[in-house]
C-alpha cells in the first residue's frame, strides 16, 4: 500500500509517521502512535470528541488529512499534563467540578478549552460556550463543564 511520510511535533516530541495518505490525523494518532485519548464520536467533524490542538488552534482531527500536519505542532490530551504527571489546571478542574461523567467527550472538551485559554486567558461564559459549541456531550448538560473551565481560569490566575 502506498504510504506517505509526515514529520511533525507531537506533544513536544519530534515524530515521523509513515501512513496511507487517506488517513486522517485522528486515525494516525490512534493507530500509528497508539494515542487513544482523542476519540471518534462521529468521524465527520460533527461532535468534537477528536479535538486536538494544532499550532494553537482546536481542530477536529477526524477530518484533518494527515499530510497537512507536516511541520506543525500537535497537542493531544496525553500531552496536557506535565511530564512529571502534574495535571493541567483544566484536568484538575474537570475532576473537581464533575466536568466528567462517562468521559467520552472529555479529551475533546479539554483540548478545545486549552486552545481557548491559551488565546484568551480570561474568557467570559459566552466565550467559553462558543468555543465548546462543537464539542457534544450527552451526560453533563455542559453546565459543570463550563464551570470547570471557569475554575481552571481561576486556578491559573492564582498561580501566576
Amino acid at each position, binding site marked *: 500500500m502506498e504510504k506517505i511520510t509526515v514529520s511533525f511535533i507531537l506533544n513536544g516530541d519530534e515524530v515521523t509517521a509513515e501512513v496511507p495518505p487517506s488517513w486522517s490525523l485522528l486515525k494516525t494518532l490512534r493507530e500509528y502512535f497508539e494515542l487513544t485519548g482523542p476519540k471518534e464520536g462521529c468521524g465527520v467533524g460533527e461532535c468534537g470528541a477528536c479535538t486536538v490542538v494544532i499550532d494553537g488552534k482546536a481542530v477536529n482531527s477526524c477530518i484533518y488529512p494527515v499530510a497537512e500536519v507536516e511541520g506543525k505542532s500537535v497537542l493531544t490530551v*496525553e500531552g496536557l499534563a506535565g511530564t512529571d504527571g502534574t495535571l493541567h489546571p483544566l484536568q484538575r478542574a474537570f*475532576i473537581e467540578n*464533575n466536568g466528567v461523567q462517562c468521559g467520552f467527550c472529555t479529551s475533546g472538551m479539554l483540548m478545545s478549552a486549552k486552545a481557548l485559554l491559551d488565546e484568551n486567558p480570561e474568557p467570559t461564559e459566552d466565550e467559553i*460556550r462558543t468555543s*465548546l459549541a462543537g464539542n457534544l456531550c450527552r451526560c*453533563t448538560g455542559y453546565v459543570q463543564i463550563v464551570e470547570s473551565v471557569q475554575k481552571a481560569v481561576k486556578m491559573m490566575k492564582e498561580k501566576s
Partner: protein
Amino acid sequence: MSEYLYVGKSIPRTAEVDKVTGRAIYINDLKRPGMLYGKIKYSEYAHARIKHIDTSKAKKLPGVRAVLTGCDIPDVRVGFLKDQTVLKRDKVRQFRDEVAAVAAISPEIAQEACDLIEVEYEELPGVFDPFEAMKEDAPLIHEVDARGRPVSSNILPLPWRFSAGDIEAGRAASAHVVTDTVRTTWVNQCCMGTSGCIAEFDMNNNLTLYNQANVIFWDKRRIMEYFAQIGLKNSKVRIINPVVGGSFGTKLDTDIYEFIAIQLALKTRRPVKILFTREEEFRALPPRQPAVFEIEQGCDKEGHLTFRNVKAVLDNGAYTSWGATTPSVMMMPISSLYRVPNVFFEAKCVYTNNIYCQAMRGYGNPQATFAVEVSMDHLAEEAGIDPAELRLINCNHSGDETPMRLKITSCGLEECIRGVKEKLDWDKKRGKHKGRGVGMASLIHVAGGARVYKSDGHGMMIKVDEHGHVDVMSGGTDQGQGSPTVLAQIIAEALGFRPDDITLTFGDTALGLWDAGTHASRHTFIAGNAALRACEKVKRQILELAVEEIPKLVKHQIKRKKRKDPDFKEPDLDFSLIANPEDLDIKDRIIFCKKDPENPYFRTEVSNVLREALHVGTGQSRVVAAEAFYDPPTEMLDREFKGNLSCTYAFGTTGVEVEVDKKTGEVKILQLYAAHDVGKAINPTLIKGQIYGAGYIGVGYGLTEEMKLEKGKVMNPNFLDYKMLTAKDKIPVTPMIIETDEKDGPFGAKGIGEPGLVPTAPAIANAVYDAVGVWIKDLPITPEKVLQALKEKREKEK
C-alpha cells in the same frame, strides 16, 4: 443525626482521573492480539423477501477472513419475544435488518466486502404507522410467531391493561372532564461513545465478551441461552465492561451485533470487534419508544381528581426489544402521579416496518408523564383552578398507597411544587399570555430498585488487605454516573476508612456477584445497601481480629519502649475496655476504644492489626473479606400490574419560564428549576450533574430532538440533522435538592439517575401554552409546530 465525614460531601471523582488524561480505555480503544474487524450488511428495503445473496466477490477480497449470511449460521431466534434471527434469511422487515456480516483484517476491508455482497430482494408493501398496521388488510410484518404458529395481526400479544376503581363512577363524580391526544416520537440515546464489542473464544470454546452491557448478568444469560441452542452447551461466558461511553438505556438488551461478533469469532477462531459508526448508531440501534396517548381525566368541583383513562398505541417497529415493555413503567405516572382513585390504562404495541425500539433514560415515564401533565394543565384550565394549585390539591403524600399499590414512603412532592412555584414567581408571572409564560410538571419514578425481574438483588464483595487497601467488587456497572465515587463515600463512611483507600471494580461477571443491572435509577440505592451490609461484616471481622491483636501489639510496643528506655514506666492499661468487638470502632482507618478513644495504646491503624493477624505462623493466619447480597423487600407486579415494586419512589417538579417568539415560533427557556426529592444527597455535586444532564436531554426531548423516519428509513442519521443541544444552547437549569431522608435508603438516599429528564418536556409545553395560548401536544415542540398552532388559533378567533 450524626455528623458524617464523607456522606453529603462533594467529594471529587478522583478515581476517574484516567478520563482526563486520555488513559481510560473504551471499547473504541480496546484491541486484542490477532483481532479482526466485523461489519454488518444491512437491508436496503423496509420490507422485502430475500431472493438471493451472492457473497462470492466479498469472499475473494484480500484481507477478508469470513463472510456469513443467515444460511451459514444456526437458524435460532433471539430477542425479547424471540421474533428475530441474528442474520435474516428469508425476509427483511426494517432497514436495519442484518442480512450478512464480514470479518476482515481492517474495518475498511470489512466494509468494502460488505459493499460487494449482492442481495436480490422482492419488495413487499410496508406499513409505517401503527394505526394503519392495526387495520385488517395491513401487510403482516410477521407471518408466524416464535413457535411457528400463524399470526393474524400486527398487534403484539402483550397484556398491557391496568384497571383500578371504577372509571364510570369517576366520570359521574366529575364536574370537569378533559380529553387530549398526545404524541411522542423516536429519539436517539446519542451516547457519545458508539456501540461495540469484542468477542473472543478460547480453545475450550469459552467466550469472553468485552462489551458495554449495563445488565451484565442478563447479558450472560441471554448468550448462554443462545449457546445452548447453537450447540455450545459446555461453553462458559464472561462479560467484561471496558470504560463505558454513556448508556442511557442502549445497553439493556443484548443487541444483534453482539451475536454477530460471536458468530464471526466462532467462525474465524480469532477475536472479532464490531464497532458502530455514528450513522449505524442512528440507523441500527433501537431508539426510545414512541407512543400516542388518548388521555381523559376529570376532577370534581374542588379540583380532586376523579379518574384517569388512558389508551396508548406504541409503534413497536419490526421486532421486539424492551421498548415493548415501556407500558409497565407508563403505568406508574398514569396510576400514581397525584392522587387519583379510578384509573384505566391500556397499551397496544404494534409491529410496523419502522425501526424497533428499546429503553432510554426514564423508560416509558417521560412519554406517559408528558400525557398526564399536559392533561393536568388542560384540566386546571377547564376547572378554572391554578395548575400549581390543582397539583397541590392532588399531591401524593407520605403514607399513601396508590392504585398500583405503590407504597409511598418519604415524599417531597409538595415541597418540590411549592419550591418551584416560589422560585418562578408563579403567581405574578402566570396567565399573562403575552409571549412569556411559566409552566410546571412533576414526576414519580422508582428510586429504591425496581423488581422487574424476580431478583432485584445486588452482590458486593469487599476485602481489606494488610496494607489497608479496600477492594470492592460490585456486580453492577459504571457508565459514567459516578458510582466509583458515591459508593466509595458510602463504604468509607460505613467502614471508617477514607474514600481514597477504596478501589471499586465493576462490570465483570467473573469477579462480581449477581446484580440485576445498572438501570431503573437503582444503583446507588441497591448497591449502597449491599455495601452497608458487606461493610458491617467486614468491620466485624476487623474488630474481632483487633480484640485479639491489639493487646499483643501493645505488649510489643511496651517491650520496645522498655528496651530503648530502661526507665520507661509501664502504663496501667485496662484491657477489659477492649475485650469485645463492640468495645471498638474505626474512624479514619484507626481502630480505637469507644470508652477511651484518646488512649494512644488502644489506637492503631487497621493495617497493623491485619498484618499481625496474617503473619502469625502455621495454620493461624487470617484475612478479612466478606460479601453481601441485598435484595430489597419489594414485590413483582401481579397479573393486574399491581404491587410495590420499589422500596421508595422519587418525586420531583420542573418549572420553566419560556419566551415564545410569535414571528419565528421559537421557544426560549429563560429559567428552569428542577426540584428533586433525592432522599439524601450522598454527593451534592454529582447529584447536580445527574440533574443537569437529564434536564438537558429533557429539553432536547421537548424542543429539538427527533429521528425523522420516512417509510422506515432514518433520514437524519447524523449530528447535523439530529439536533442535540450544544454548549451554546445555554439552558439556565437550577437544581433544587430536597432531602427527605428515606428510611430504607443507604444513609437516606434515593435513586436520581432518570428523574431529571421525566417532567421537563411537559413543563415546557405547559409554559408555551401560558405564553401564547397554544398547546403543542406532539413532541418535539418545534418552531414550525408553534407557528402552525398560532395560525390555527388566529383563524379560529376570527
